[in-house]
């Protein structure tokens, strides 16, 4: 594959694309009240903070912080909705608020650094803001009940509101520096909320780990911003993408084939891997489950962890600048690997919240694989559907944890469906599981995942090498997903009613809580969820179901999400993603086999005939999109993914299902603790244990990263003490010591003595000057 912009055909296509007006829209001035979207939660955070600092007595347990923040978040959501309908797919809105970091060294363009607090609203920002503010409001309402018995109620909601502020800046910022502010801001809030139970050493350690691992990614992002600024002379999207759409840097030179074109996406990718917990930087996310469950639902499942997907989608044109697509290849491979690896770990865990955490990792892997195989629509749609169904799943797990005194072990809970007051939770859980497993046709999770897998098969191997392998791995992983998802459901929600409360109920009475795992604890009564929790769960379950609708509207753009992305910087599409006949050959630079040309579905561009390099041997193969076993992937995928999902669920039913209807007739489980899977796991030998121990990746990192760094720190410390300070400084001959001895009488503490010293010092100086002049 050679250089896009070097190829005359593509260049002219680019030019015509620019001429036809959809390459990059100039922005309109947005309304001032868009600043209220982050502004209202900021106000909430400040009020909570003030309550925290000035109301010394925290025994009041006032619900005011929760209600206040919920109301302000709802306001934020309403403004977003209002703005969204007002925007109506027009030009992007830019709302300038105030100047943040500005310094100039000349009057001209490109002779200043201008990073301002301004908000940029295009289709991508709207999509993210709609579900961020919407879900934040719902989860905040849930938390008002969930967190009611915890200390530091105001502290929780202050950090929660601050998170929404940061996330808004990340998504809405009109420049990369403001995005970076949000990026680190969400990291801080994540740190504060994971470490919410700060007296628990494991929570503190998890919070620290999350922040530090994220910082590794942040460094990548920071370097990417430096490189972008150095290359383009700007950090503002408007100016940046105007240049990128022309394929030139700040001084007008063509960018293709430069090292910047390769490195900018690679560095951005590292940033995305950190925040979105992709291999090898994923280790912080499972530990982040130490935080309260609403936090896990909002931050560590629905919103913050999708920031990496947002970043890559936002910067997609920059990823396409590199003709060999190095970064996109890595994104695709790493995403696929993460999806598979996390699924294998998820299958072997017993803590249902951890299973959900690994499933989040796995689904994020799908999104990254989607971005890698150029299915930006699929990735973004999967972010959207995943936000709903994963929030539902987490909040359902949270309700279980809340009701059963912190119990999360699937071997100690069974048959929740049949316990009074738990029906809504169970139904919500079922809906979430169906979506996560990707039950065909009726679930949104099916459609969004399907888009990614189909695209992996559609994208020619010549563009993303091995994309059909990616497709197969993702398909197989879909089967694993269905298995581990329904493993939870079959174990915990159906079957014989049994439960052992967690240790939060009997903190002072430990032997009672543990030990008797065979039957229910006589003294313990599960605490059924109240109104707020049920209301939010029902709402989210409905939301997760309705998230299917966007798939069927705006067919021109492959769904509503595609329509939004079309009006954003992520609208660069690969030509082979359309299987309409007239698009089949469009936009494919035959001499390269790559089709990296901006295109709109509504206005297909045919490259000039000259670019059809008939003399290129593989030209004919290259222009054909990939296929799935000889069929059109988009059609075949309905059956293929349906098959894998069904097999996964049947396996789960066979291994974990209870006797009877809820085990689909396959199950044989009669107690909470024991199932057929135990025997199977023994048969697997050590593999099951390895998976349960997360393939020992944490231990590996401790051995090869943490320990050597720590040793190095100790060596440096010793070196500083003994060599630099000891040998070099203290041992620089006798002189310093001699002078020290002469000076020692000076420390008399008598003022006159010091004054004499001062005068003498000045005298010495004057003397030196005199000597030098002579």
């Amino acid at each position, binding site marked *: 594959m050679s250089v896009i912009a070097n190829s005359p055909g593509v260049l002219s296509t680019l030019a015509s694309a620019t001429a036809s007006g959809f390459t990059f829209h100039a922005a309109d001035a947005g309304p001032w009240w868009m600043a209220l979207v982050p502004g209202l939660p900021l106000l909430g955070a400040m009020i909570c903070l003030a309550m925290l600092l000035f109301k010394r007595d925290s025994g009041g347990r006032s619900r005011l912080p929760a209600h206040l923040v919920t109301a302000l978040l709802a306001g934020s959501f309403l403004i977003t909705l209002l703005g969204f309908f007002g925007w109506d797919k027009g030009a992007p809105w830019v709302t300038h608020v105030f100047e943040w970091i500005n310094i*100039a060294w*000349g009057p001209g363009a490109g002779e200043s650094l201008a990073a301002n607090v301004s908000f940029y609203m295009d289709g991508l920002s709207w999509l993210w803001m709609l579900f961020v503010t919407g879900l934040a409001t719902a989860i905040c309402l849930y938390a008002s009940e969930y967190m009611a018995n915890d200390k530091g109620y105001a502290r929780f909601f202050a950090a929660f509101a601050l998170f929404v502020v940061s996330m808004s800046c990340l998504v809405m910022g009109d420049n990369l520096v403001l995005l970076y502010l949000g990026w680190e801001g969400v990291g*801080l809030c994540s740190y504060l909320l994971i470490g919410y139970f*700060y007296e628990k050493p494991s929570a503190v350690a998890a*919070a620290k780990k999350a922040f530090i691992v994220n*910082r590794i990614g942040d460094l990548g992002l*920071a370097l990417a911003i430096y490189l972008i600024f150095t290359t383009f002379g700007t950090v503002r999207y408007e100016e940046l993408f105007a240049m990128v759409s022309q394929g030139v840097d700040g001084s007008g030179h063509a960018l293709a084939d430069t090292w910047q074109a390769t490195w900018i996406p690679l560095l951005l990718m590292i940033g995305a891997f950190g925040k979105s917990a992709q291999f090898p930087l994923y280790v912080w996310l499972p530990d982040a489950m130490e935080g309260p469950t609403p936090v896990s639902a909002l931050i560590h499942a629905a919103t913050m962890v999708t920031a990496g997907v947002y970043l890559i989608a936002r910067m997609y044109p920059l990823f396409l600048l590199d003709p060999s697509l190095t970064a996109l290849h890595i994104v695709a491979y790493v995403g696929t690997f993460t999806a598979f690896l996390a699924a294998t770990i998820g299958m072997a865990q017993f803590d249902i919240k951890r299973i959900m955490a690994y499933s989040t990792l796995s689904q994020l892997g799908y999104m990254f694989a989607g971005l890698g195989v150029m299915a930006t629509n699929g990735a973004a749609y999967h972010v959207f559907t995943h936000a709903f169904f994963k929030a539902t799943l987490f909040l359902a797990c949270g309700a279980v944890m809340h009701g059963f005194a912190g119990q999360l072990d699937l071997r100690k809970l069974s048959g929740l469906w049949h316990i009074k007051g738990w029906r809504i939770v169970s139904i919500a859980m079922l809906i979430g599981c169906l979506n996560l497993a990707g039950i065909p046709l009726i679930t949104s999770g099916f459609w969004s995942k399907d888009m990614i897998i189909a695209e992996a098969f559609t994208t020619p191997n010549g563009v993303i090498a091995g994309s059909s392998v990616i497709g197969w791995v993702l398909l197989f992983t879909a089967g694993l997903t269905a298995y581990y998802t329904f493993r939870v459901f079959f174990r915990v929600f159906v079957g014989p009613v049994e439960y052992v409360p967690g240790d939060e109920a009997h903190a002072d009475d430990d032997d009672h809580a543990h030990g008797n795992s065979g039957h229910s604890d006589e003294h313990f009564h599960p605490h059924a969820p109240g109104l707020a929790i049920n209301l939010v769960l029902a709402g989210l379950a409905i939301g997760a179901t309705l998230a299917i609708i966007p798939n069927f509207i705006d067919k021109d753009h492959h769904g509503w999400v595609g329509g939004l992305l079309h009006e954003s910087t992520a609208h660069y599409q690969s030509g082979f993603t359309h299987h309409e006949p007239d698009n089949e050959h469009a936009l494919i630079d035959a001499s390269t086999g790559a089709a990296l040309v901006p295109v709109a579905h509504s206005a297909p561009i045919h490259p000039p005939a000259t670019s059809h390099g008939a003399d290129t041997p593989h030209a004919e193969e290259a222009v054909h999109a990939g296929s799935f076993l000889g069929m059109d992937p988009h059609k075949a995928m309905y059956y293929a993914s349906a098959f894998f999902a069904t097999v996964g669920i049947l396996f789960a039913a066979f291994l974990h299902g209870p006797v009877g209807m809820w085990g689909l007739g396959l199950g044989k489980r009669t107690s909470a603790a024991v199932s057929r899977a135990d025997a199977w796991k023994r048969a697997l030998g050590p593999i099951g244990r390895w998976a349960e121990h997360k393939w020992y990746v944490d231990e590996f990192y401790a051995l090869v990263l943490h320990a050597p760094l720590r040793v190095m720190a100790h060596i440096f410390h010793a070196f500083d003490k003994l060599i630099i300070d000891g040998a070099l*400084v203290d041992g620089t001959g006798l002189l310093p010591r001699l002078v020290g001895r002469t000076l020692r009488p000076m420390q008399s503490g008598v003022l006159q003595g010091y004054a004499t010293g001062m005068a003498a010092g000045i005298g010495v*100086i004057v003397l030196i000057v005199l000597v030098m002049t002579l």
Partner: protein
Amino acid sequence: MTLWLLILLPIATAALIATGSRGAARGTAMFGSIISLIAAGIAAFQFDWANSGAMQLESIIPFMPSFGIELSVGVDAVALALILLAALLQPLMVMGSFSAIRDNEKTYYAWLSVLLAPMIGVFAARDLIFFYTCFELTLVPMFVLISLFGSTNRKKAAIKFFLFTFTGSILALAGFVYVAWRAAAEADVWTFDIATLQTVAQSMTLREQTWVMLAMLAGFAVKIPLFPVHTWLPLAHTEAPTAGSVVLAGVLLKLGTYAVFRFVLPFVPDAVAEYAVAIAMLSIVGIIYAGLICWVQRDVKKLVAYSSVSHLGFCVLGMVALNTIGLGGSIMYMINHGLSTGALFFCIGMIYERYHTRSMDELGGLARRMPIWAFFMGFFTMASVGLPGLNGFVSEFMCLLGTFQSGAAGVGGVRGPLGFWFAAVAGTGMIVAAIYLLYMVGKIVFGPLKEPSGHDHHDDVHAPLPTDLTRREIGLLVPLAIACIVLGVYPTPALRAFEAPIRNTLSAYQSVDFEHSNAHNNGHIARVSGKEGATP
């Protein structure tokens, strides 16, 4: 005259304290420091910010005309900003000492007050000898504060501090005098006027410039402190009383970086361009080396002290990037580090007053006992770690961006001495900073509550401090917190004011061809005449 007033006010305050009664000492010190702050505010008001590059509020008192020595003062925006920082910290330091210093109050407050005078003198001086005198005179009050009011190992710390920095600055003086001698040889008249000497120094040969640079750096690098001449700092910080640590981190270290900005960069541009890479490497080594050392400290005050070494590495790195963004970041770093690290020393001092230990083995989970203190500790830690929205980010981001940009033949086609790899390696300092600062917070603020055994608030001879912060303590942290937020959220006015002084400093580098010197690396700097492209 405002500047003279600023220099004389602390001396007058100290004189009043020394002659006044024992009980009036702290009140007088407080009053005097507030007057100084007001005077600094007046100076800022008189200053024409639209013309921030020009020396303003100038005033000259002839002193030794035959040697060309004058008492000459004047400030541009950078000097004034640092004067404001010093004046802001002064009342807070006095306030922060009320409960810590119970004996020998007159001596303590007199020396603490008088310290402000030479500090302002350093920033305001327009005469080299006057500058040097002030630079050295800061040592004496600091020496007294450490050796009389410090902790157990105070004598050793004070002597080391004094000797180390004094030895260095003697060499710097030699460098100054050489330049003055050169000027006198040319013009037949002795002068120590900074503006005059700057022109002379720039015309020296590379060989001369290199020697002068080494002499000056010998003095200033110790003060900053740059690796490997940093070892006096952790000791001095650990042993100094709280206010001493605050002023040390807040202002005294900035005397070194300010001197590099004011003298080294504009005096010897060819030598700096030649050795920028070496200086940058020392800074980067310092950033990572000191950062990792922080991570294995048991004494929380020593940890913050070593973090200063690491942080100041960024400051110097931004400076030798030799472009506007790097220098702008560096100047912001001087102010921001003073605020956030100064505040951290206050926070640690408050713990020390309550528990009489700074050992992280004996302290833990204090958030439970002292939630308000924990909030401030966390806040300033985040400012220090460089969280966007707080002040530390602006400067760290700009220093690294300047470093990065320095090397690319990007916009404008101009190359500086540093580049991608310098920023990438120094950037790992961001990760290291997160590691050691969160290690600190995770130990003493969070985790299970741990207090020294046998600790009892009521065994104090004096009135015991309540568990959480008093109003006075909150009152002294709040202004710092506000400053951190303001400089983090709206640094643009400050940055705009620094543009002109930076342009003045960088004008010496307009004609230095870094591309040439880097490409061939033959130790020869080409001065290309008539090259128009400004170094960004």
